[in-house]
C-alpha cells in the first residue's frame, strides 16, 4: 500500500539531492552549512523512525545549531531574465499546461484514490497526490522540454536555498505545540481565561471566547490547538451549558475566530513566514501585515455572529 512511508522516501531523496548540489555550489560562501542542513533533513525523512526519540532530538539540535551559528548562505542566481523571457516566448501558453499538472493530479487524486483503499492509504490521499503530481510534472517537463535531469534539481535547490532554514520552521512549531501539550500549557491558559470573565455577563463571555480563540491561536500558531482549550474553558461551561447557546454555532464560529488569529501570527509559519521567504520579500512579517486589515474586522464579525446566532 502506498502511504506515508513512500512519500517520506521520495522527500528524503529530494532533500538528499539538494544536499549534494549545495555541497558542489562553489558560488555559495556557506555551502557546507547548507549541505549539512539539507542532508540532516534527508536523514530525518529516510531514517527518522529508526533514530529513536533522543536521536531525533539530537538531529533537531544539529539543525538549530547550523541555522543559529553563522547560518546558511545563498549561491549565485540562475540564468538571467532575458534568457527566461526568450524561452517563455518560444513556449507560449503551453507552459501553463505544465503548471496545471500538480493541481490537476491533486484534484484527480482526491476523487479517485479513495476508491482504491487497498492501494493507497485513504488517510494520506493528499500527500500521495502531491508526491505523484510532483513526479508527473517532472516526467512531463523533462520529456517535453528536453532538459538534463539535473536541471530541475539545480533550480529546485536554488529555490530551497532562498527559503533556507524557514523550511523547517512549521515542523518545529508543530513540535513545540506537542511539548506545550505535554506540559499542560493549554489548561493553564484556559484556567486564566475563565477567571477574567465578569460573572453573569453573556456579552462578556462571548467576547472572551472569541478573542481568547484568536489570541491563543496566535500563541500556538494553530486554531486546532486552541479550540479544545477555549471550548473547555469558556465555550462549553458558560456559552453552551449556562446560557444555552447553540453548540453548532459556538463550535463552528469559534473555530473561525481562531482562523482570524492564524492570519495575524508569525507562529503560523507555513502560511505566513514561509511565503515571505518563498516570494523573497525583505520583511519576514510582510504577509502578516497584509492580513491584519482583513483579520480584525472579520474577528469582530465572528464575535457578533456568535452573540446573534447562538442565543436566539
Amino acid at each position, binding site marked *: 500500500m502506498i502511504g506515508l512511508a513512500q512519500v*517520506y522516501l521520495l*522527500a528524503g531523496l*529530494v532533500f538528499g539531492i539538494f544536499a549534494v548540489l549545495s555541497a558542489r555550489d562553489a558560488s555559495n560562501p556557506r555551502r557546507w552549512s547548507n549541505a549539512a542542513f539539507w542532508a540532516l*533533513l534527508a536523514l530525518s525523512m529516510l531514517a*527518522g523512525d529508526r533514530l529513536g*526519540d*533522543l536521536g*531525533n*532530538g*539530537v538531529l*533537531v*539540535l544539529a539543525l538549530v545549531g547550523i541555522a*543559529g551559528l553563522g547560518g546558511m548562505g545563498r549561491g549565485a542566481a*540562475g540564468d538571467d531574465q532575458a534568457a527566461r523571457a*526568450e524561452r517563455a*516566448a518560444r*513556449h507560449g501558453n503551453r507552459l501553463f499546461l*505544465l503548471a496545471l499538472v*500538480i493541481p490537476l493530479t491533486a484534484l484527480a487524486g482526491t476523487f479517485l484514490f479513495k476508491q482504491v483503499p487497498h492501494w493507497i492509504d485513504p488517510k494520506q490521499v*493528499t*500527500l500521495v497526490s502531491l*508526491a505523484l*503530481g*510532483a513526479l508527473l510534472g*517532472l516526467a512531463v*517537463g*523533462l520529456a517535453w522540454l528536453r532538459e538534463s535531469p539535473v536541471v*530541475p534539481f539545480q*533550480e*529546485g535547490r536554488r529555490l530551497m536555498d532562498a*527559503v533556507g532554514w*524557514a*523550511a*523547517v*520552521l512549521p515542523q518545529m*512549531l508543530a*513540535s*513545540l505545540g*506537542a*511539548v506545550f501539550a505535554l*506540559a499542560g*500549557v493549554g489548561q*493553564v*491558559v484556559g484556567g486564566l481565561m475563565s477567571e477574567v470573565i465578569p460573572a453573569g455577563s453573556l456579552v462578556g463571555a462571548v467576547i472572551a471566547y472569541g478573542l481568547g480563540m484568536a489570541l491563543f491561536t496566535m*500563541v500556538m500558531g494553530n486554531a486546532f490547538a486552541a479550540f479544545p482549550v477555549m*471550548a473547555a474553558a469558556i465555550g462549553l461551561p458558560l456559552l*453552551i451549558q449556562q446560557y444555552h447557546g447553540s*453548540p*453548532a454555532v459556538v*463550535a*463552528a464560529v469559534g*473555530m473561525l475566530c481562531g482562523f482570524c488569529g492564524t492570519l495575524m501570527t508569525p507562529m503560523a509559519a507555513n*502560511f505566513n513566514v514561509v*511565503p515571505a521567504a*518563498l*516570494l523573497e*520579500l525583505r520583511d519576514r512579517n*510582510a504577509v502578516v501585515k497584509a492580513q491584519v486589515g*482583513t483579520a480584525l474586522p*472579520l474577528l469582530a464579525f465572528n464575535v457578533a455572529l456568535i452573540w446573534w446566532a447562538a442565543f436566539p
Partner: protein
Amino acid sequence: MNLWVLIGIAVMVGGFVLRVNPLVVVLAAALATGLAAGMDLLAVIAAFGKAFNDTRYVSVVWIVLPVIGLMERQGLQERARTLVSGLKGATLPRLLTGYLLLRQATAALGLTSIAGHAQTVRPLVAPMAEAAAQPQDQDEADQIKAMAAATDNVGLFFGEDIFIAIGSILLMKGFMEQQGIVLAPFDLSVWAIPTAIAAFAIHSLRLWRFGRRRG
C-alpha cells in the same frame, strides 16, 4: 496551577522581538517549557525529537520545488506577466478577487491542496499581480506579492470549513461528542458560510481600495 509552564510563551515573544533566529527561539521555548513542567533535559529533547519525527509530513511540500524551478527556468513567471499585460481589464483588484473566489470555492469542495504558496502563488499569482499593478519600486512590489500570498490564505481558511470532511470539522465533532453533545458535520459546516461571505466581502473591499490607493 503551575504558571511557570507559560515561560515558553514569554520566550517566544521575547525571541521574536529581539529578532533571534526563530529556530533557536522555538527550541529554547520548548526546553524552557519542559523544564518548567518538571521534565529533565534529556526527556524534553527526546519529546521534541519524537514530535519532530511525527510531524515530518509538514515539510513534504518542498518536493514540488524541482518542478516549480524547471518551469520558472523555462519562463513561467515571464509568461504569466505577458499574459496579464496583454489583457486590458486585468487590474490588480479584479485579478486577486477572482483568485480569492476560486480559492474559496475549491476549498469549500475539499480541494484544499490544488493551490498554495509553492504551487500557485510564487509561479503564477504573484507575477500576474505584479504585471497587473506595475509597481514603481521594490517596496511596492513586495507589498503586492505579500497581498497575493494573503489572498491565498484568506481564501483557503474561509472556504475549507464549508467542506464537511475537513480536519477542523472532525475535531469539533469529536470534541463535542466527548462532552455528550452529538453534532452532524453538516450543522457545523453550514455555520461557516456566513463568515465565508463576510471574508470575501471584507478582503475584496480591501483589494479594491489597495488598487485605488495605488492610482
